[in-house]
């Protein structure tokens, strides 16, 4: 296996200058060396205990791939577009930027929303920095693999004080043409001091195909900046989706995320937020929907490194069929992070006898003057709620769909941006079989 990856990496990095400047190349080498050293995780690894990824580790993925050449018509993409047509939207098909499907209206001065190639030719520093950081940090094996091979992705920069009023949408899609391939996108977002951004990042599978979508997103929220980040995972049912989102926040900043996980056979998302300044607010909301034999895993880590910060986390799951969900919420409060206010909630609704959930809060608190709470529930729809709806003439199966939607909507309603919230609400309602 290692040999296959080694050969692929040599071909990939040997293919001329398209893999980036020397600094990026050096980072890729370091990341690959790390991956080669540690390999894929197994269930013996505490972080992957409930998430066997043998199928991913064994498959002979095509790693050093060129564009699939698949030309999509705009209407094929229609079901996966999100929000309004006039939002700035970058579309990537099977791992490569698709200018013809993207919409790039003029944005405020200094704002850049661009694919790798443009970012490297215009201002390589941001990408170089991102690649350099990705080797310096304690990386997951998948993130190291991504750093080694990621050939394309989006780079977003919002300069100080600029407020982008319309949401930006980064849409990563895969098609049948990518079957057998590892599609490794990387997103780098830098929101400078006092700037404001609504970002939607989505992963969609247009057709059934066994693909590995191994993605990494890095968001830097500078001092007093405000970011709402909505992540929508709608991979095809045969896909494997492994994602890492790393957030770095400066003082007085506000970061809120909403993570929807709906697709893929195995989906794992790690969300890590580091609060490295005072008076930071971090709100993490999530909704995961499992059915069939899906495995959906969400790992979140909030690093409270500094005093007077607040983090608030609510993840909800709805599991049907024989699906399996994993939630692991880690909150690390360092000794200097006094007056931390952290609350974590994980609630799960089981719709079938075969569905199951492994939920684990993990609070590690080294400061003494803090307020940290957590709670996890796994349950079914309350009979009294069923009866209430039935007594109003609503049949039991419809009542179940309404009550399930209600459970989901409670967390969807936390999305701050109205157009994003509405679009998300429609998406979730339709997935759960009700009208919004």
């Amino acid at each position, binding site marked *: 296996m290692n040999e296959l990856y080694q050969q692929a990496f040599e071909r990939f990095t040997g293919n001329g200058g398209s893999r980036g400047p020397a600094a990026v190349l050096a980072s890729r080498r370091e990341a690959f060396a790390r991956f080669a050293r540690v390999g894929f995780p197994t269930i013996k690894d505490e972080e992957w205990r409930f998430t066997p990824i043998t199928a991913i580790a064994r498959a002979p993925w095509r790693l050093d791939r060129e564009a699939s050449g698949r030309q999509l018509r705009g209407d094929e993409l229609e079901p996966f577009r999100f929000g309004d047509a006039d939002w700035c939207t970058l579309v990537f098909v099977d791992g490569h930027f698709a200018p013809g499907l993207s919409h790039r209206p003029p944005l405020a001065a200094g704002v850049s929303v661009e694919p790798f190639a443009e970012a490297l030719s215009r201002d390589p520093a941001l990408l170089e920095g991102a690649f350099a950081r990705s080797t310096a940090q304690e990386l997951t094996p998948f993130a190291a693999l991504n750093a080694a091979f990621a050939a394309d992705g989006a780079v977003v920069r919002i300069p100080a004080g600029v407020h982008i009023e319309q949401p930006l949408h980064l849409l990563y899609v895969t098609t049948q043409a990518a079957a057998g391939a590892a599609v490794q996108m990387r997103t780098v977002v830098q929101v400078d001091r006092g700037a404001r951004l609504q970002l939607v990042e989505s992963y969609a599978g247009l057709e059934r195909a066994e693909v590995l979508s191994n993605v990494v997103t890095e968001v830097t929220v500078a001092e007093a900046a405000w970011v709402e980040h909505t992540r929508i995972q709608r991979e095809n049912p045969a896909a494997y989706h492994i994602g890492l989102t790393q957030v770095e926040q400066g003082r007085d900043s506000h970061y809120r995320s909403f993570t929807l996980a709906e697709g893929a056979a195995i989906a794992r998302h790690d969300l890590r937020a580091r609060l490295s300044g005072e008076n930071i607010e971090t709100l993490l909301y999530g909704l995961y929907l499992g059915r069939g034999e899906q495995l959906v895993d969400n790992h979140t880590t909030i690093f409270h490194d500094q005093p007077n910060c607040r983090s608030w986390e609510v993840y909800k799951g709805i599991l049907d069929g024989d699906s399996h969900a994993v939630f692991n919420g880690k909150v690390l409060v360092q000794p200097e992070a006094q007056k931390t206010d952290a609350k974590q909630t994980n609630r799960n609704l089981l719709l079938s006898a075969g569905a199951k959930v492994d939920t684990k809060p993990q609070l590690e608190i080294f400061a003494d003057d803090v307020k940290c709470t957590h709670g996890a529930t796994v349950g079914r729809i*309350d*009979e*009294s*709620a069923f*009866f*209430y*709806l*039935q*007594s*109003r*003439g*609503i*049949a*039991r199966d*419809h*009542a179940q769909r*309404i*009550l399930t*939607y*209600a*459970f*989901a*909507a*409670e967390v969807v*309603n936390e999305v701050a941006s109205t157009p994003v919230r509405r679009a998300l609400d429609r998406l979730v309602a339709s997935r759960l079989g009700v009208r919004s």
Partner: protein
Amino acid sequence: MLEIKGLRASAGNQEILRGINLDVAAGQVHAIMGPNGSGKSTLAQVLAGHPAYTVTAGTVRLDGADLLELEPEERAQAGVFLAFQYPVEIAGVTNAYFLRAAYNALRKARGQEELDPIDFLDLLEEKLKVVGWEAEIMQRAVNSGFSGGEKKRNEILQMAVLEPKLAILDETDSGLDIDALRIVADGVNALRRPDRATIVVTHYQRLLNFIVPDSVHVLVDGQIVKSGGKELALELEARGYEWLTGIPEPASA
């Protein structure tokens, strides 16, 4: 309209209704009174089809149709409405959404076209007047964070929208102050029609000052022990239930 004969029902191993006989004619209001634990609320819930109770004997017919054969939603579709003593909170969906779903479920069951959100809002605007509410409350989640009085008003609003043949009010007066009580009673009265009947389950006579019953029945230990006109309620108010039960009531009741 409603005929109950020899109705017996249990929760688990405990028999709660022990042979109820009751006829309610169209256009009438019947009050069911009785001390705590007499089975009043159980009767209301059994009529609506609450799954916690098992009917062991007897029949219930609504305009000749066997109600006990029907699922709770089919009873609602047949025209039964229960105003809950403890309305359920549903965070996540708005009152407007919930009411529209219920309204359309009834229409669909009756082979009528469903109303779209815009047309439904027009209808709702009319109905809101029944309980003296502004449209804003329809954007709040169902009963979520509502005061006790608001929940009861919401039940009456639902009743106004769904226009049942048979409305059953289960202790709708409990926890209401006098102003809220009047609003709820006015709402119920506004919905009275010659082709509709109402059963008012209550512990106190107070509500019956506002919703004047045609008949009053006293339920004790799962059986109707006395029936009479509206003056029976006044007698109960003056004398308590002790003369009918033989058991002194706690002073607080």
